[in-house]
């Protein structure tokens, strides 16, 4: 059986007021676009934390799309500006980590731009197909490793084992 062609997996964080509504419009307008993205609606693109982007990569995403309001249109005045600066820095970090910065894409999509949303999705899928799968595994950047969390359980387990042996 021939190997199935690579289909990139995308996590799309879409703001509720603009990009999310734009994606809805693309759907209700019956505009065809690739179904590679898992959309996650957030109240504002400014709510998207860099940690979420990395968590998406850790969970097997090949690309992350963040959709927000056009400059000046943010429902919360400046959330999109904050996320733009964060994503700019995050891309610099990704470059140093050896992950192509193009795997993170920030787009301004208004509620009326269903066609733009579809175009962005098509472009992103093509781009990610060129980049190929991201082999990050579960592990590259992990939260709160270190003894404070992960090893607590194993320490407790060891203690319990010892207690049982002792008694």
């Amino acid at each position, binding site marked *: 059986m021939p190997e199935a062609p690579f289909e990139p997996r995308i996590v799309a964080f879409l703001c509720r007021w603009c990009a999310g509504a734009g994606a809805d419009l693309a759907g209700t307008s019956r505009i065809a676009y690739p179904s590679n993205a898992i959309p996650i609606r957030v109240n504002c693109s400014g709510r998207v934390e860099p940690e979420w982007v990395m968590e998406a990569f850790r969970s097997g995403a090949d690309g992350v799309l963040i959709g927000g309001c056009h400059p000046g249109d943010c429902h919360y005045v400046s959330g999109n*500006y904050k996320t733009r600066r964060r994503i700019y820095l995050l891309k610099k970090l990704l470059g140093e980590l050896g992950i192509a910065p193009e795997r993170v894409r920030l787009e301004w999509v208004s509620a009326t731009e269903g066609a733009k949303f579809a175009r962005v999705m098509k472009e992103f899928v093509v781009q990610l197909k060129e980049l190929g799968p991201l082999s990050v595994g579960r592990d590259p950047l992990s939260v709160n490793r270190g003894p404070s969390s992960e090893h607590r359980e194993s*320490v407790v387990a060891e203690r319990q084992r010892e207690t049982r042996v002792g008694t």
Partner: protein
Amino acid sequence: MSASQPNTGLPQSTGYGPRTTDHGSRPKIAVYWTGGCGGCDVSFLELGPALLDVLSQIEIVFWPALVDTKRSDVEALAPRSIAATLVNGTLRTEENVEMVRLLREKSQLVVAFGACAYQGGVPGLANLSSREEILHRMSGNGFHPTPPPGGDAEDAPPELLAQAKSLSDEIVVDYVVPGCPPMPPLIGLLFDALLSGDLPAPGHVFAHDKALCEECPRTREDRVLTKVVRPHEMVPDPEVCLLDQGMICMGPVIRGGCGAACPKAGMPCTGCVGPTPNAGDPGLAMISALGSLVRAGEEGAASFAAEDKLLDALVDPLGTFYKYSLPAYVRGAGKRSDR
């Protein structure tokens, strides 16, 4: 605690009970170094007079930096006969791993002592290069990991691990004393717990859970970052928050407990105590914080280019944010396919 004690700025005597000469009843303590610089071993001296109180109540069974003990001495000990082993340094060679596994077996408690043992430390930045690249560079400089002339094969230096690791990558770690090197107040907390027997829950980090900013005496005024300045480029105002002045200070995401030693001295926090439990990954938390703080004029599309230029002055986010924690947060850097 007598009033006649000189004010050294160091912690006062811990006031541990009468000194005993009965070595047999003292808890056995081991201190070991792996891929470290030796600074952690020296840091005990900073306890000042309190060190005498500590030493009078413990028995040192193994401490290569201080006393003449050999690996065979440790091997001869009964399992779990060492009360606590303090390990400093990153795990870099196969020998490091063998030794910490041996010490784990012989110890009731193992403490990651210092930033390297906790999260990989500065030597962990070597993980940006592969083992082969590192060895190539070393052999290019004339170093060959082979036995000395006429020596046995076992005299060769131990094999380098593929990656530098933190202590908890190999063995169960009970407690952490963070810092590069650990500060006297934090070391004091550890011995206080060890000697009183009032032990915290496993996994405890002997530092504050709140951010460094909480104990920093500097005042925040603007709460914006309008430029990025590196420490050698300016002499900061002694009163004002370093972030306000454009220095990339990790204070917002790093644990307090060190007494804000660096910010008090005009240097931005570089994060040696490790992130607060709430911050999680220090680099991503800092990106989040800086994204909120950066301003290049009025916010809006017209400022985007200026903001990017401002952020470009932060030349090395990875090295800045993960200076002490690369092995803990970034695995397999330097060998990913996208590179």
